């Protein structure tokens, strides 16, 4: 007897679909970052004096020394550098773009930590580590990190 998904005569398969509605509270610090992105098209970070690091996205406390950072806001540049990248070559419902597109780690000027985002306005074969890019903001808000729509070459 062959056991396979198709062989439902002899072997039943239980199909399921989980419904798990959820939300995520951004908190005071995360909310301030999103609001600045949305209303002023500004990228904010926080500085840890002790570790001499500027974190973006911001966090309430430094993860290394536990210093409180929520009062030490820094306005960062909308331009930055591609630290690394990959090209997404498959399509799926959860993905933000149709393939192929560039997903890169971008360190904006003034920050010490890079964060992931999409790079557009360039052929996927032409992206390079070290490439200068600038932020392009979304026309319509989603109240998420996607209010920064993508980065494109300077």
């Amino acid at each position, binding site marked *: 007897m062959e056991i396979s998904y198709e062989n439902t005569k002899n072997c039943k398969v239980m199909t399921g679909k989980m419904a798990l509605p*959820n939300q995520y*509270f951004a*908190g005071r610090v995360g909310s301030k970052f999103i609001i600045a992105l949305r209303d002023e098209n500004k990228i904010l970070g926080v500085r840890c004096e002790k570790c001499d690091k500027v974190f973006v996205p911001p*966090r309430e*406390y430094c993860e290394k020394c*536990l210093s409180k950072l929520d009062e030490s806001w820094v306005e960062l540049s909308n331009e930055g550098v591609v630290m690394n990248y990959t090209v997404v070559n498959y399509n799926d419902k959860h993905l933000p773009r149709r393939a192929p597109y560039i997903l890169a780690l971008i360190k904006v000027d003034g920050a010490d930590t890079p964060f992931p985002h999409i790079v557009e306005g360039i052929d996927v074969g032409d992206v390079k580590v070290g490439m200068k890019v600038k932020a392009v903001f979304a026309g319509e808000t989603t109240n998420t990190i996607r209010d920064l729509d993508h980065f494109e070459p300077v």
Partner: protein
Amino acid sequence: MGKRNRNVGIIGIGQTEYSSHKEHQNQVEMVNEGVRYALEDANITLDDIDCVLHGNMELFEMVHQPDMWHSLGSGAYGKDQLRITTGGTTGASLVCAADNLVASGMYDVVMAIGMEKLQEGHTTGGITNMADPLWFRHLQTGALTATTATMMMEEFGEERAKRAAMKYRIMMDKHACLNPRAHRRFGLEYDQTDDLMNTSPQLVGELRLIHMCSQSDGACVMIFASEEKAKEMCKNPVWIRDHITVHREETFNNFGIEMPEMTHHYAARKLFERNGIKNPVEYFDVFEMYDPSAWWGLDWAREFLLLKDDEHIKLLEDGEFDLDGKLPINPSGGVTASNPIGATAMLRPAEAAMQIRGDAGPQQIKKEVRHALASGFGGTLWSVLMMLEKDLDWQEV
């Protein structure tokens, strides 16, 4: 009891407040708050921590591998880390695992984090996915059941059973009202018993809304150290004497209508036997129990304390489970007051340890607490039972 390679002491405890919602902070920040309080309590820094344990409920916030991205707040950067997720018992399993890891000699100092933000997810959506997909998943109703209420009413008479369950519930609220961190503090009075028995909305049978535990947000963090380190780092470590974990899933099916020994009773019988505890009500000075509902709390007092017939109801009626009674149960207010699930079962040994230290706050028991019992509970009758001691003077059996 397995051979204990070395003793383990609790040297730090941190808790956030518990509430139905925490819009002001995200999960990472809530974890971080608990971690900071525990480090402050232990008067140490992250540099002293060798390993971090993280636990919460699978699926409840619809998050995957939160131990990884919570490292922005958990202090796990550059350290060994494990995630433990055993349903309702998660918090207790974290304590057992921390004890095992330190007792074994693997690590000297371990920090365990239990957290939950129930407001962000859908608990019943998560919990109904726990059962065997072939036989039980399609029939799951989540965590609500009136089986115990029905059985107790049959055994002790409807009026006495209902009155006792409500007395237990009001006692828990009175305890919770003393605890500044407790989530639900209603200010109930015993003269409301009849009113609540009749008017609180029925969930399933005689399990009413007022009987049932809350859905809370919060984090609890505990720090554990080897005997040598604990004595060096801490003035008043609380010692973990022994613990046992018992569960059964298949026996629901295999034993049919024949009622097997409850995991609670089995856990207590084995644990007390191997530690030479003849009379748990006399021996222990406090019992922090994972009581998901007032009915279960009262019924399980009988199982965990190896009581017979209506002894547990008599003890309750006589006020012996009150803060000034023979064996106070849940000075913290228990789970009906605060239930951030991944932290809930850790709150039991945490609150019990604070009672032993004598710094539990307004809910501190007045007489000296030397011996404490704490339990954890989870789906399909997981039971964890743990003994804590003030002094390292117990006799090996």
